[in-house]
Every structure is written in structure tokens, then in C-alpha cells.
């Protein structure tokens, strides 16, 4: 047993690399899906029926596709359309599409429940359009949505593990490689589990900090 962990320790550089890839994919994926999800939420809330319905169709589509299938589709399917991404980029694209849909749904839900009061005052004071959205609506939405967005971030971190099937060198892929090379499954996978747990704890600490900001304002 000790020997097994010693082997994993000897390969800690690889694991660290996998961890960085996982964190990189998750952070970049989160940032992009929050940005795109915010835009998509605007479309979901659009007064024009055709616009909001198309946005809703997009959201429903991506929420119904299993993430694994989406990753396959981006990596193996898109080249048929002439779109060739490397493994890492394919993984990121799949994460962003998938989570943009979820993020938009979360943000729209909170936005709908936002009290009309503040928005009305902003309108009366001359806010409109993007300025109203970015300065008055979105900050309130983010403060309320923070715990749900944190959950989604954790979901993203875990979903990156699926990307090992398209050979993205993320944490699960690396752990799997170490175990098959040295046949140390318990130690290799346990090490990966601990590292996942560490980054998820970091995310939770972040969510806790935002929740405190939100509490001060409630």
C-alpha cells in the first residue's frame, strides 16, 4: 500500500499538470458560460416572442443532451462540418455550450423574481438598455444567484472528468494513466479524489464570501 502511494507521489508532477488542466478548463469554462449565459438570459427575457422562444429552444436542447454525448459530438462530429478543434479546446467548447444553457436558466429565474421597485427607479432616473442591465439588474441577480452559480461551478469541475474520453489531459485522465501504467488504481484514484475535493472546497469558500456580501445587503 505504502509502495503504491510512493509511486503516485513519484508521479505527482503529472498529477499536478492534470489538476492545472482541470482547474483551467473549469475556470475558463465558468467565466465563458457566465458571460454567454448572461447574454442568453437577456434573450430569454426578451419581449419579442420569436427571440425568447428561440433562446428557450437552445436552452432546452443543451439541457437534454448528456454531457458525454456533447463532448463526443464536438470532438468527433464537428470536423465533419470543417471545424477542427484540438482535444483541450473541444472539451472547453463542450463545457461552455452545456453550461451556458444552465447558467442562463439560473440567471433568468433569479431575474424574474427580482423586485420591480429598483428597476422602476432606475428607469425613472434615466437608466435604460445595457446600462440598466449591467449596472442595476445584473449585480442584483449575481448576488442572489451566487449559491446556485457555485453549485454549477462544482458541476463543471466534475464534468471535466468526462473529457478523459476525448483524451484531454485533465486530472482523471492523468490518474487513469498512472494507474494503468503502474497498476496502482486505489492510490491513483484516491489522490485524484482528494485533489477534486480540494478545488471544490476552494469554490465553496468563494461562494461563502459572496453569500456574505449578499447577506449584508439583505
Amino acid at each position, binding site marked *: 500500500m505504502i509502495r503504491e502511494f510512493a509511486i503516485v507521489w513519484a508521479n505527482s508532477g503529472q498529477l499536478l499538470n492534470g489538476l492545472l488542466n482541470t482547474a483551467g478548463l473549469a475556470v475558463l469554462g465558468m467565466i465563458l458560460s457566465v458571460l454567454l449565459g448572461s447574454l442568453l438570459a437577456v434573450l430569454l427575457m426578451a419581449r419579442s416572442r420569436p427571440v425568447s422562444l428561440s433562446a428557450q429552444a437552445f436552452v432546452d436542447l443543451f439541457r437534454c443532451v448528456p454531457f458525454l454525448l456533447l463532448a463526443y459530438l464536438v470532438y468527433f462530429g464537428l470536423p465533419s462540418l470543417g471545424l477542427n478543434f484540438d482535444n483541450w479546446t473541444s472539451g472547453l467548447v463542450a463545457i461552455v455550450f452545456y453550461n451556458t444553457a444552465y447558467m442562463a436558466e439560473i440567471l433568468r429565474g433569479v431575474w424574474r423574481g427580482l423586485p420591480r421597485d*429598483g428597476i422602476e427607479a*432606475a*428607469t*425613472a*432616473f434615466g437608466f*435604460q*438598455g445595457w446600462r440598466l442591465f449591467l449596472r442595476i439588474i445584473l*449585480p442584483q441577480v449575481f448576488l442572489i444567484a451566487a449559491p446556485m452559480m457555485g453549485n454549477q461551478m462544482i458541476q463543471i469541475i466534475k464534468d471535466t472528468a468526462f473529457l478523459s474520453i476525448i483524451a484531454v489531459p485533465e486530472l482523471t485522465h492523468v490518474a487513469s494513466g498512472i494507474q494503468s501504467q503502474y497498476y496502482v488504481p486505489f492510490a491513483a484514484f484516491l489522490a485524484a479524489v482528494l485533489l477534486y475535493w480540494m478545488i471544490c472546497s476552494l469554490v465553496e469558500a468563494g461562494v461563502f464570501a459572496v453569500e456574505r456580501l449578499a447577506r*449584508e*445587503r439583505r
Partner: protein
Amino acid sequence: MPDTSMPPAVAPPVLEIRGLTKSFGTNIVLDGVSMQVGKGQTVCLLGPSGSGKSTLLRCVNWLEPPDQGRILLSGKLMGFRDGGVVPMNGMELARARSRIGMVFQHFNLWPHLTVLQNLIEAPIHVQGRQRDEVIGEAEVLLDRVGLADKKNAFPAHLSGGQKQRVGIARALAMRPELLLFDEPTSALDPELVGEVVAVMKILAEEGSTMLVVTHEMGFAREAADEVVLLDLGRVVEIARPTEFFTKPKTERARQFLQRYVHA
């Protein structure tokens, strides 16, 4: 005084409302309302609930676009481009709205911003004024409404009376030509009404131009230059408060006073 150099007959009133109508479905809320507010005047809009007071106020800054009629702000048409036919687009409307300050019944402060940030938000990001100058002015305003020590607090931590004083300061920070008050004390506990009314009285005395929808008859009597009684969407009576409260001209006004003042 600069005011006296300009004869009042020449300067247009700050607010002029002509023949305003507004319906919600088949419900006629405003039925040809005409009135004005002169520079430095305080006009109180009185009337039973459902008389159209709040709708009239909200038509002034186009929160409710009226069906017919004209609103002129210092002689300039609201809601339409010059010529009066083409409606303003969103940006033009926003610019026009930023000339008017509004105080709401439920305060409507922005909960994600501190008290000071609530005051400077629109002057900086709508009016595009200098941040330092705006902050300086906002601090003076907070001091005047007695809340200098609360500038870094969030609205959620204030009492109703404090929130409404912030609401008033926020409206003043816009350097508005006209202040609209939509039942500013109706959502307050009775013991908190006084502190808000006191601030409003000072503004009226200092010559702010104010249109006030209120049920505070004391304020109307003491601070208004004119009261306008609205009923079923029509102007019933326009009078000086001394006359209105002691010898009203119409039967409807007598009934109203009976019910709301002597009750």
C-alpha cells in the same frame, strides 16, 4: 435674486400638463387633466385612492406613457421629439427622464449599493458628471437629510424613514428641474412620517419645484403653494391651501375634506 430678473409671465412653468388622458383597458384613469407647476412651487395632488394621482405623476416622466395630451418640462415636450409627432426613442426618453427626480412610496433604493453609491449612481452613469464633484455634492445632501453617518450602510440596514430620506437625497443628487413625490410617507410607520415630512418642508421652503402626491394633509396645508384635487381622473379643484382647506369651492372637495381631514 436671479428669479426676479426674469418676469414670471415669460418663463414657461417647470411643468405643464395639458389635456392628459390615460386608460388601462376600459378603465379610464385620467380624463383630460390640465395643470401646471411653476418654478419654485410646491403643488400637492390630493384625492381619494383610485382618483388617478399616482398615474398622473407616473405619466409626467413617462413611466406610464399617456394616451393623449401633452407634458411640457420647462417648455420642452416630454415623450416626443420637437414637432410633437415622433415618439422619443429609449435613449432620448432616458435623457429627458434624468431631468426629473422621483421619490417613491416604497423607496425603491438599489439594494446592492451603499447609501452613498445610491446617490451617485445615476449622476455619474446617466448624466456623465465628474465622480469627485458628484461625491462631494452627495455628501452634502446626506448631511442635509441627517444621514451623513450612514453613507456606507446598505439600504437593508436603515429604517423606513431613513430609507425615504435617502430616496429624497438620491432624487436631489440629479439636480432635477422638478421633483416628483409618489405618496412618500404612505409606507412609513406613523412615528417615522415626521422626519420625512420635515425634510420635504425644508425643500419646499428653499424653493425646490415639487409635485407631491400625498395623504399628509398637514404637509399640503403648511407647505404647498397650491393643491389640486383629483377625482375619477379629473381635476375637481385647484386652489391655494388656505382657501381649499377652509372654504372649498366645490361640493366634491367638501366631501373629500370631510372624509380625509375631519375624520
